[in-house]
């Protein structure tokens, strides 16, 4: 994957989480993963079309998601992952996706994003056969958040 595509996602994830949640984010080393990735518990999927086709998956476990939802709803404590909590996590993901796309646009790549879809549950896997996927693991006080980006690049000449 082109480095130009990667950095906007890395930057956007760190910035949004820091700004919105007001917590320190430690970026761990990026790695590549192919085929199947297990889902931590709550995953938001955003589709990408345009210069490349693919998807962004923002993934965390349920505890982390509940903490994130609490902070984003001005301290309202969540015991269960209800609709409001879901909407909140979706919104966070949308912000990350949106910031990354904006950055990519400013570098001359054109992208459109699909509305986010949220998946919850344990013991799930997500597969994108034949796609190159990279993962940005973020360490936060709320727990681990993973930004998983898989795209199919056009052949370049």
């Amino acid at each position, binding site marked *: *994957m082109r*480095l130009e595509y990667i950095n906007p996602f890395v930057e956007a994830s760190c910035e949004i989480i820091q700004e919105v949640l007001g917590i320190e984010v430690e970026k761990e080393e990026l790695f590549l993963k192919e085929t199947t990735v297990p889902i931590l518990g709550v995953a938001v999927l955003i589709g990408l079309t345009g210069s490349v086709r693919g998807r962004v998956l923002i993934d965390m476990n349920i505890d982390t998601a509940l903490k994130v939802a609490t902070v984003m709803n001005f301290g309202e404590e969540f015991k269960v992952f209800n609709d409001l909590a879901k909407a909140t996590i979706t919104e966070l993901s949308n912000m990350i996706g949106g910031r990354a796309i904006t950055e990519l646009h400013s570098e001359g790549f054109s992208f459109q994003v699909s509305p986010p879809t949220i998946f919850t549950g344990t013991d799930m896997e997500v597969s994108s056969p034949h796609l190159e996927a990279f993962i940005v693991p973020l360490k936060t006080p709320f727990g681990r958040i993973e930004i998983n980006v898989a795209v199919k*690049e056009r*052949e370049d*000449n």
Partner: protein
Amino acid sequence: MQATALSTNQLVTFQLENDLFGIDIMITQEILKMTQLRRVPNSPFYFEGMLNLRGDVIPIINFKKLFQFGTFELSRDKGIIIVNIESQRFGIVIDKVLRVFSIEKISINPVPEGFPKPIKQYLIGVIKDQTDHIAILDIKSIFQMVANDLALGDISYYNLDFRRDKLSNNLEEEKIILNFLKSINFNINSITNIGIFNYFSKQKIINKTTMNVVVKQVKDSIENGSLTLLNKEKNEYFFDHSEDYYAFFDLFDHVIVPRKLKENNKNIKILNIGCGKGYELYSILFLLKSFVPDFEKWNVKLMGIDDNFNNLTFANEGLYPVKSLIKINKNDSQKYFVTEEGNYRIKKDLKERVSFRFATPKNFESIRGVDLIFCRNVLSKMDDTSINRVISEISESLNQYGVLLLSEIEDLYNIEQNLLSAREINGHRYYVRQ
């Protein structure tokens, strides 16, 4: 004392590579041209097979393999000397038979010090020809050893594959083993580094017992500190292994350029798999800039892929410390770099020709139509399944006439695959799509 091993004063002399050897004429039965040998599975590495000689089956031994020198290929111009020791017959593969040489026993000199021990124990002595030396082989003790090997039944030599053995999971250990082998004067010819491990596995040189001894001694040596770890950072400079770059340039100049000129196509796409911090990739670029006539007129694009994001970011930044320029002279460095606070930044016109991708060697599907892939020391660290996936990705990625170059010390010799086939240019091996 040893001289008594000769029963006559006549020797049959023959040549192996450039060295002359002699054996007692009384044990020599006949000399044949090389014919078809019947191979025997699970036999020692120096055992070429069986020869059917007028109804008798005779085992054939290759001394070059036994003593580890020269090339091992059997070809029609080789010969076989049949020797008869106490009515046991063996054949020896030779390059060339010379003549019968008369000697006085008195002129046999003892084997000089400094001969490697593995060979020394099978020599009776050395005699001086007018111009050269002839080493007299102690055929009897050689065949005793061979007969022991065969009789022991321990001929299922351990197919030592360092590369896929857990021993070689990291470079340090490979180097330790290599150093150890050097320290015991193991004859490794010119094969170095990873090559030696492939080489061992191919030739099945080390048997299981030897291997266990080697492993134990290596471990002991590490424990008592007599072997030191080599610094892994050592190769962090441009043009780190010049032979590979000669090979690269020969391939570029003699294979890629003529084809492109013929097609009147100025676009050349080069891919460096496992580019790491970019030393390889930029070295190639410097090489091309300095030695390709009208380099500016060619649209040469270089791509590097690696699965270490940090290294890749470093490469993409293109800012290098002065110590990485040790092999680049001052004039050249001004062609390639601009200085920046004591560091060296790749010049913009060069940087524009380069791009980096975050990808594994197993999957770089967006990179297609490549003319030349340069992939050093990547395959040698992988298991079979991974190697095959990488090869299949490489063959997809190459264009119709595309070529693959590995490092000088690697090859695909013992990898079962039917996508790439080997060619040679100026002694450098490369691979094309089948």
